[in-house]
């Protein structure tokens, strides 16, 4: 029993919070403000506890695995959720269903934890659904906005379609190998065409969740339609979790199919960067813009994964950590502005620096980090991904990736330009930023600046393997 407590600590903590929320909701209920503060405190506690009492081992046969690395990955997700709860406070306070929102979000988080820890395709599938269905519901939380329900609809239908294909793949895999266990699969994969087919079907589910081109099309619509808190959650937590399990699966389970997935990753990485960047070029809505930019970022993650080596794992985890800070910072700024002024267009950001220098600097920092400009951490993150990709001597691949950084810089600079350079008759007025948001933005900013230079973080991740 003790083992269960330590190994499943993160899951149990999250479940505990879920039930606490449920009881609060069923019982008297609390005012939004106090509930939010409570949740924030709980999430902080959850995040902090994530670093203690970590064990390593399997549970439920081999359905549930945990290692220090997985624990660290969970901590990253915890941190992201905590930051979202701070950053989107303005929106959260206004929502009618705060308890339910967090309940769903934490369910999804639980699903992601289980997904990262899963040692079995069944549990993987179930946790994937657990990580998806509540988010689809969350996407609809702006109940009276048409776009919100449209986004939610697109998400639930697409994800159902994608899980159908995933399941078909799993069934074929099961038929050919007779097992769904991650530990048994590698020995039974022989690379027969049917298995390749099954693998491709399976692969697309990851691709769908990670928004890899051409399975990415839902992303932008859903991001744009959803409340910013959900978008942030989707783009950071959901993506990060899937990236982790994706990488683990490829490295551990599908190692026999390396030749197949390596090429596949390279092709898709290039396509993803390119399409993501090209679409991001002409976006006006900041959420949609960030959606495409995050698609392009995924291309880089794929590049890192393609290395099939320790350095790949390390740099992907490291990158996701940096990405959490950078992307959340930009979403945070977008959330603050959107919540206070209702403006979500990049053109509306013109002249922002004049009135809101703090927000502007954070936004610029975040965007530079996303673009991979030093001294922000994004530079290191991206560079290490490319270093990992380079370890297979695929020079043309890193060349393309590096050239894509130029396109991405172009559109990130577009926002920077709007904020710092363009003139505006009616700039966004001075926004009063609440303490929690400010704190979260500062945390993000500090993370962006420091993470790259504090190399022990990177080394810590490396030591976890």
């Amino acid at each position, binding site marked *: 029993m003790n083992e269960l407590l330590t190994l499943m600590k993160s899951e149990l903590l999250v*479940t505990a919070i*879920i039930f606490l929320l*449920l009881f609060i909701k069923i019982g008297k209920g609390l005012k939004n403000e106090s509930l939010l503060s409570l949740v924030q405190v709980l999430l902080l506690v959850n995040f902090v506890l994530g670093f203690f009492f970590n064990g390593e081992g399997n*549970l*439920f*046969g*081999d*359905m*549930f695995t945990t290692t220090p690395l997985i624990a660290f990955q969970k901590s990253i997700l915890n941190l992201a959720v905590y930051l979202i709860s701070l950053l989107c406070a303005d929106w959260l306070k206004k929502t*009618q*269903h705060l308890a*339910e929102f967090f*309940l*769903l979000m934490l*369910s*999804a988080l*639980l*699903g992601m934890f*289980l997904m990262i820890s899963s040692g079995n395709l*069944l*549990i993987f599938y*179930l*946790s994937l*659904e*657990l990580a998806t*269905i*509540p988010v*689809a*519901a*969350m996407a*609809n*939380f702006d*109940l*009276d906005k*048409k776009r919100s329900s449209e986004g*939610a609809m697109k998400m639930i239908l697409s994800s159902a379609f994608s899980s159908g294909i995933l399941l078909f793949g799993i069934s*074929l895999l099961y*038929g*050919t190998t*007779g097992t769904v266990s991650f530990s048994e699969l590698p020995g039974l994969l022989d690379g*027969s*065409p*049917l298995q390749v*087919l099954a693998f491709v079907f399976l692969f697309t589910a990851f691709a769908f969740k990670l928004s890899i081109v051409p399975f990415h099309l839902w992303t932008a619509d859903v991001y744009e339609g959803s409340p910013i808190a959900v978008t942030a959650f989707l783009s950071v937590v959901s993506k990060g979790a899937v990236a982790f399990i994706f990488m683990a699966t490829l490295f551990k389970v599908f190692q026999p199919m390396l030749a197949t997935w390596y090429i596949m990753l390279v092709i898709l990485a290039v396509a993803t960067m390119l399409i993501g960047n090209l679409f991001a070029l002409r976006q006006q809505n900041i959420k949609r813009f960030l959606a495409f930019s995050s698609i392009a970022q995924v291309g880089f993650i794929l590049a890192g994964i393609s290395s099939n080596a320790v350095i790949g794992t390390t740099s992907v985890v490291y990158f996701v950590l940096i990405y959490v800070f950078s992307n959340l910072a930009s979403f945070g700024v977008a959330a603050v502005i959107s919540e206070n002024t209702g403006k979500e267009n990049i053109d509306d950001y013109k002249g922002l620096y004049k009135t809101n220098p703090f927000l502007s600097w954070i936004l610029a920092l975040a965007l530079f980090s996303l673009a991979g400009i030093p001294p922000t951490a994004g530079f290191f993150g991206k560079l290490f991904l490319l270093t990992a990709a380079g370890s297979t001597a695929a020079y043309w691949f890193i060349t393309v990736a590096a050239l894509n950084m130029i396109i991405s810089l172009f559109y990130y600079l577009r926002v920077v330009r709007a904020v710092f350079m363009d003139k505006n008759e009616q700039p966004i007025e001075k926004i009063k930023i609440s303490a929690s948001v400010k704190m979260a933005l500062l945390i993000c900013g500090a993370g962006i600046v420091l993470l790259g230079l504090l190399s022990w973080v990177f080394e810590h991740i490396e030591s976890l393997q």
Partner: protein
Amino acid sequence: MITGSTILFYILAALTLGCGIIAVSTRQIFRAAISLLFSLIGIAGLYFWLEYQFIAAVQIVVYVGGIVVLIIFSIFLTQQAGEKLPKQQTDRKIFAALAVFCGFALSMLQVYQHQFNIAETTVAPTVADIGKKMLTVDDGGYALPFEVISMLLLAAMVGCIVIALRSKPETK
């Protein structure tokens, strides 16, 4: 040798696929729902044919008794029962058909080329086995998935409540 079981199989297969096709092609939404129902019943029949009675039962209870009813309710809720469904653009249909055909051909080719490891003996699991397994936490047990699904159902329920019970529907 044409046995009764073979004939039954083909009848069930025809029912499943035929009703499936009607379900995705008819322009009467109600008719589609009913065809879906029969298609699902056909599948339940196939489960019976495969001697997986438990699954067949679950199929009928959950699908026929649950999901299809849910769907029919939602058809009523959205006041679509009488209307004909809108027509899809032809090019979309063609592309879809093409893609579907390619996909089908591709997967069937692979399936037929693959030598499955066909077991000599077939043992149908008993409900007791299933029940035991479901609650086992050790190797080979399915307690964790069971818990996960319960969380999922909880979350889905909460989600549905929030979304569907919108307090003041505003029309814009």
